[in-house]
């Protein structure tokens, strides 16, 4: 397997002829730019320290005060300064680290600027980023500069024969310690030294970039494995919700397409067949057209059921209370619907609640032996609560039927929870709570 990071690449035997030294060079150059950015930003809160160094001498208490003041300013502004620094460094990391970078910790949304600031200062990751910015502005560039100097030296040596030839007899020379070369033949050892230096440089620069990247990764991408796992879980939950939302939108689109396209055409076709049937004299042709008409009508009914199964139009058009009433109408046992809902709710909340009610009423009909059931829906405090209650024999267990498990999954995707109470002898109460915000009231 090819190496994923600069440090892994160090172990490869073909490092000097691989692309890694050059990637590392790119990284090192980027480090210097990022360091400049970090230093420029940190120079602002560090002004008291500059005063101590440049504008002194001050009396000792003043020096102490300025040092403390600088410290306070750096700490106070660090988490903010770290935002652009960390962002550029995460991007930079991709040059020498092919592992998936993951995501930086997501800030909890909402709350405006004040909320963001509160969250930012409370986040341990922000403080690590601030520490990283300090490190980047001070220590980290040193190694990068050393790596660049080595490359420059290697270039001087490699180029020495050409340099000397170009200088001719003007008295110029290339020197290493007390060893001088002032003619082309004398410069040949320098050339080979340059080659050796270049090979050594390839290891040095890869090591520098690798170490830098390792520090960057560990400071910018979560601390312990537990924290990283938690961040990943948050991200997974968010992406699951996004997927479910996309799925929802897609279902609505398919429903609309089928309704506006295939269904309309099929109704028109069936009508044409019906007309043709009327015009034909009795005979085999009339018989065939009658059969075709009948099949088209059957297909119309099938298509209508299919579309309804994909996304009930009544839910899309009229909202949850009407859709629940329709569900109740179709149930084989009498179902009473109590709805305290006003206005429409977000699509995902409506769909999830509808699905929950449909599943629950199916279970009522199939397993409960109930003689009646009720569905209650209300929204309060940003939570949609749906309760389906029956007077059946109880004993429903999510472990025995996949329907309830699937329902719990679906509710969880919407960020809600499902509660089931079904003691032997009944009654069974299924309660679903889904977070939602009223879009209109």
């Amino acid at each position: 397997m090819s190496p994923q990071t600069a440090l892994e690449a160090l172990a490869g035997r073909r490092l000097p002829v691989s692309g890694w030294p050059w990637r590392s060079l790119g990284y090192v150059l980027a480090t210097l730019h990022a360091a400049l950015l970090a230093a420029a930003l940190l120079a602002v809160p560090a002004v008291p320290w500059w005063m101590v160094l440049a504008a002194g001498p001050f009396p000792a208490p003043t020096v102490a005060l300025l040092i403390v003041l600088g410290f306070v300013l750096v700490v106070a502004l660090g988490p903010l300064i770290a935002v652009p620094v960390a962002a550029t460094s995460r991007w930079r990391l991709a040059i020498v680290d092919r592992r998936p970078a993951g995501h930086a910790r997501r800030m909890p949304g909402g709350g405006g600027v004040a909320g963001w600031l509160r969250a930012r200062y409370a986040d341990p990751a922000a403080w690590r980023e601030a520490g990283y910015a300090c490190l980047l502005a001070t220590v980290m560039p040193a190694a990068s500069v050393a790596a660049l100097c080595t490359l420059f030296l290697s270039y001087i040596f490699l180029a020495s024969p050409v340099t000397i030839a170009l200088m001719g007899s003007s008295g110029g020379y290339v020197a290493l310690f007390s060893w001088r070369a002032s003619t082309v033949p004398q410069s040949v050892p320098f050339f080979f030294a340059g080659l050796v230096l270049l090979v050594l440089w390839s290891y040095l620069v890869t090591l520098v970039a690798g170490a830098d990247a390792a520090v960057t990764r560990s400071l910018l991408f979560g601390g312990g494995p537990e924290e990283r796992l938690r961040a990943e879980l948050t991200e997974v939950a968010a992406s699951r919700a996004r997927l479910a939302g996309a799925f929802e939108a897609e279902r609505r689109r398919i429903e609309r397409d089928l309704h506006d396209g295939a269904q309309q055409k099929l109704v028109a076709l069936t009508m044409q067949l019906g007309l043709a049937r009327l015009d034909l004299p009795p005979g085999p042709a009339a018989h065939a057209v009658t059969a075709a008409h009948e099949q088209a009508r059957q297909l119309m009914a099938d298509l209508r059921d299919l579309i309804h199964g994909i996304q009930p139009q009544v839910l899309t058009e009229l909202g949850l209370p009407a859709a629940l009433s329709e569900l109740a109408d179709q149930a084989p046992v009498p179902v009473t619907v109590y709805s305290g809902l006003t206005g429409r709710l977000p699509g995902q909340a409506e769909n999830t609640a509808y699905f929950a009610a449909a599943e629950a009423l199916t279970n009522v009909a199939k397993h409960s032996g109930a003689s009646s059931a009720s569905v209650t829906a209300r929204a309060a405090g940003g939570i949609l609560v749906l309760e389906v209650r029956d007077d059946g024999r109880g004993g429903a267990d999510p472990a025995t039927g996949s329907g309830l498990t699937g329902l719990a999954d679906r509710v969880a995707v919407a960020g809600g929870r499902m509660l089931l109470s079904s003691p032997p002898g009944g009654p069974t109460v299924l309660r679903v709570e889904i977070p939602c915000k009223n879009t209109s009231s």
Partner: protein
Amino acid sequence: MQEHKQLAPVIRVVLAEDGVLLREGLAGLLQRFGFHVVASAGDAAGLHAAVAEHEPDLVVTDIRMPPSFTDEGLRAAVDLRRTRPGLAVAVLSQYVQHAYAADLLDSGDGRGVGYLLKDRVADIEEFIAALRRVCSGATVVDPQVISQLLRRRRDPLAALSAREQEVLAFIASGHSNAAIARTLVVSEAAVGKHVGNIFAKLRLPQADDTNRRVLAVLAYLRGEAYSRG
């Protein structure tokens, strides 16, 4: 074809349906049965304009139309009935929605109005017959709506006998007592007795017969709206 010759003058129709294919098909169908389609529209605004311009006898409109693709056609139909009480209106619904049917029957005095499933246009003779009944002032609710209502064994319905439920289904489809008697092969007097029982059991007020027939249908459509709202 001799049927439509009896109908003079010709019924002038404004048609509203956003699907071009279906709109053309419907127009052809109506012409074929002797209706005169004076204008057709693709949305509610077009429908209002066409009605204002042509003052038709009958409006046939789809419920779901642009721009929001929800109930534009229904709202347009209810508006039209408010401003033109004599205008017969038939709306075509993609699926059974009792709230829609109740809204529509509520408009005006519930006469000369029809709530039909779109699929009904495939049963051509039945569809045309329903439109003619609407034009002659009857209230027509799609048989499927009625059968769904009758399937539910609850509220006022429970008080009706099986025969009375059957008779109510015919009333809702806009049939006269005589027509019901013919279909059920009973005397018209027997039908009249059933109808009287239905009115009594639904506690419908004393009023003229047509109005009570509409109220009987509304009672069912509403039965749910009240207990569930």
